[in-house]
């Protein structure tokens, strides 16, 4: 079980590190935006599952899972909000009227 936890932990870390460098390396904010998603939807859940496997079920493990779920749920919302503002600033999408 300890080995499985470590494998999941370092798999999650590898996904996050690769996504971060890809986001830094690639050009253009809309292209960069694609590399935010793996951090919250793949990397974070992998780390959360590894904590659950290593520590077993407890109240603190529940808080870890809640945090990871919050991160996974908020990731797409952040990406959508960022994509909208980038599209508005680049003239792809119309800006909203402030009435």
């Amino acid at each position, binding site marked *: 079980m300890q080995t499985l936890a470590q494998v999941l932990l370092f798999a999650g*870390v590898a996904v996050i590190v690769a996504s971060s460098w890809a*986001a830094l390396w690639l050009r253009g904010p809309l292209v960069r935006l694609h590399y935010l998603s793996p951090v919250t939807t793949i990397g974070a859940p992998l780390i959360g599952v590894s904590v659950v496997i290593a*520590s077993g079920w407890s109240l603190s493990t529940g*808080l870890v899972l809640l945090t990871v779920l919050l991160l996974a749920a908020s990731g797409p919302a*952040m990406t959508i909000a960022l994509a909208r*503002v*980038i599209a508005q600033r680049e003239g792809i999408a119309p800006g909203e009227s402030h009435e």
Partner: protein
Amino acid sequence: MSLSTAWYLASVILLLGAMGPALLLSSRRGPTDRLIGVSLGGSVAVLVGLLLSQAYGESSYLIVPFVLAVLALTGVLVYTRLLGPR
């Protein structure tokens, strides 16, 4: 490798390998690129907090990444509202 060492190692790798690019991204180029860096840095900081809490074996520290996860989302949404269309 013991699990405690693995938590420490993973948090150091995340700090150097993921927080580094996030800080670089948030300090260069245009405002939207910087906001992407801030968003990435927030997510990575939450995960580093989780891992350090596991490494120290202090479950009370878990409140920090939990609150940060809420505030990171709120902060990015506020910044997107402030940036708006040019």
